[in-house]
């Protein structure tokens, strides 16, 4: 298995705070890699560095063998990296289908940008397939803002998939979900892992251990440890820094 994404010495400081400090790891193809760590460990900042929302002050990001360090968020998205957000981030006045259509239209050639929206074709087909897969049929004409929290989180993942990314970055996809919804989302991520590489931030340790092929532990901006779930659970350093607190 090859590495889809690799990070090499990624760092950024805000004032004196080293939010992400010399973090390196690789994300293998078609695997679930999860970043864990206590609040303030720098997980979301790391996601922002990878997805182009922030420019790293040092280090390198490589996506499928290509150096993509410092690319804009839009360019990263086009390079095949889609991300979701910790706080739901949709076009809430637009309907579910419009949200998905917007997310899928990047699949169509640029030459279609000034033609009428097509009812057939790659983007339109993708939208219908996602509506089906994510069981959003009954809600397609609802504004995204009117959906339940769980539905909004599902729509968010669906929108990320709409661009057919190589790697899907999910920032706490189960945040604020009920127990049942969390279990469903876990199942969904497991299914998705068969077709797309997943990089996850997750707090539900049970879920992390069950889902992940590889776990990266962050603490105070640095990488504390990485390895398989079992090895991470057994690591005394990790236990002291993370599990010990819980």
């Amino acid at each position: 298995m090859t590495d889809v994404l690799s990070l090499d010495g990624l760092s950024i400081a805000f004032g004196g705070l080293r939010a992400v400090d010399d973090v390196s790891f690789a994300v293998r193809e078609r695997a679930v890699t999860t970043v864990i760590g206590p609040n303030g460990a720098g997980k979301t900042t790391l996601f922002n560095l990878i997805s182009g929302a922030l420019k790293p002050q040092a280090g390198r990001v490589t996506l499928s063998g290509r150096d993509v360090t410092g690319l804009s968020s839009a360019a990263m998205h086009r390079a095949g990296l889609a991300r979701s957000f910790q706080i739901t981030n949709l076009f809430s006045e637009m309907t579910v289908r419009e949200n998905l259509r917007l997310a899928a239209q990047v699949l169509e050639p640029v030459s279609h940008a000034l033609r009428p929206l097509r009812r057939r074709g790659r983007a339109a087909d993708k939208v219908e397939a996602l509506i089906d897969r994510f069981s959003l049929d009954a809600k397609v004409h609802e504004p995204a803002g009117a959906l339940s929290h769980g539905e909004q989180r599902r729509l968010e993942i669906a929108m990320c998939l709409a661009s057919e990314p190589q790697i899907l970055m999910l920032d706490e996809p189960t945040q604020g979900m009920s127990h049942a919804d969390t279990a469903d989302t876990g199942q969904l991520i497991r299914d998705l892992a068969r077709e797309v590489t997943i990089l996850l931030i997750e707090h539900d340790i049970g879920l992390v251990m069950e889902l992940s092929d590889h776990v990266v532990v962050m603490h105070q901006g640095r990488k504390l440890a990485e390895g398989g779930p079992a090895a991470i659970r057994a690591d005394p350093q990790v236990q002291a820094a993370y599990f010990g607190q819980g």
Partner: protein
Amino acid sequence: MRDRLEISMQANHGLFAALVTAGLIFGAVASATGDVFYLRLATEALILGGLALSVDILLGFTGLLSLGQALYFGIGAYVSALVLRAAPDFWLAIGAATGAALVAGIVGGLIANRVRGVYFALITFGMAQIVARVVYNTRELGASDGLIGVPVLEIPLGPVSFSADDPLGFFLLTFVIIGLLYGAVAYLLSTPFGRVIVALKANESRVPYLGYSAWAARMAAYVVAALVAGIAGALYPMLRGFVSPELMFFASSGNALIMVVVGGVGTLVGALYGAVVLTVLKSVIGSLTEHHLIVVGGIFIAAILFMPKGLMGLVRPAMMRWLLARAEARAPRSGAVRRTTQ
């Protein structure tokens, strides 16, 4: 099975058709009764409607409040007047004004799009004031008097030709041009490109994660709006025979904004209705009292308080419900069919 954005645009088209019908009836009645005053007033309203349309592209779709959109209207008007004084040719004047608005829109966009929100509003305001003041103080551009003596234009349209002095002819020509601007903008907003523009207003911070540069999309919308204002402005000296720096002053930009709000933000056609209503009201009230601005101000406040969605808000929701029901009735089981085929 239609998108809300599509249904919404269809409702706008219905209201535009109503406006065209009303315009044709008005034109027929006015020319039958030999009226000149109201035909020319209606023509002016439509030209100002073009400026209001430009404001609505930014405010209603892109989510940008421009307080200086009259800048591009004024540039179009001045360039058109200069061309017409040198060489009275309709298409040359329109072409030159379009080119000037394009260049000015790019330059203005590069400046204004560095900031967002209230700062954007202030910068657009400032840019218009600066250019207006420069024009006001430039003797070659007629300074405070403006450019007068724009010759009456002979407009060749294929086999026929008519004079801009012909009230009905020029009214109809203006209607066609403003209609084409409306149609072009409505079309543009219905394309994938347009969806990105609409996405800017809905949630700009999410747009980069769809694979589009928010800055580039904002720039494009800004330049399109400048073009619309510039082309509308090019018609102004043909109607009035002069241009003056007041065209670029804040009062012009502010009036256009009021037209959009009274008509209905984010509907395109509302800008045109708002322009007609406000222009006619100003003229009628202005003939009764000198203090017509007080009345207009009162109307503006009342419109915001009692018709937050403007004049269009009175009929559009019902139209959209009807269009939606019709779309559903036409394709009752498209969803079911799609599901079984997968």
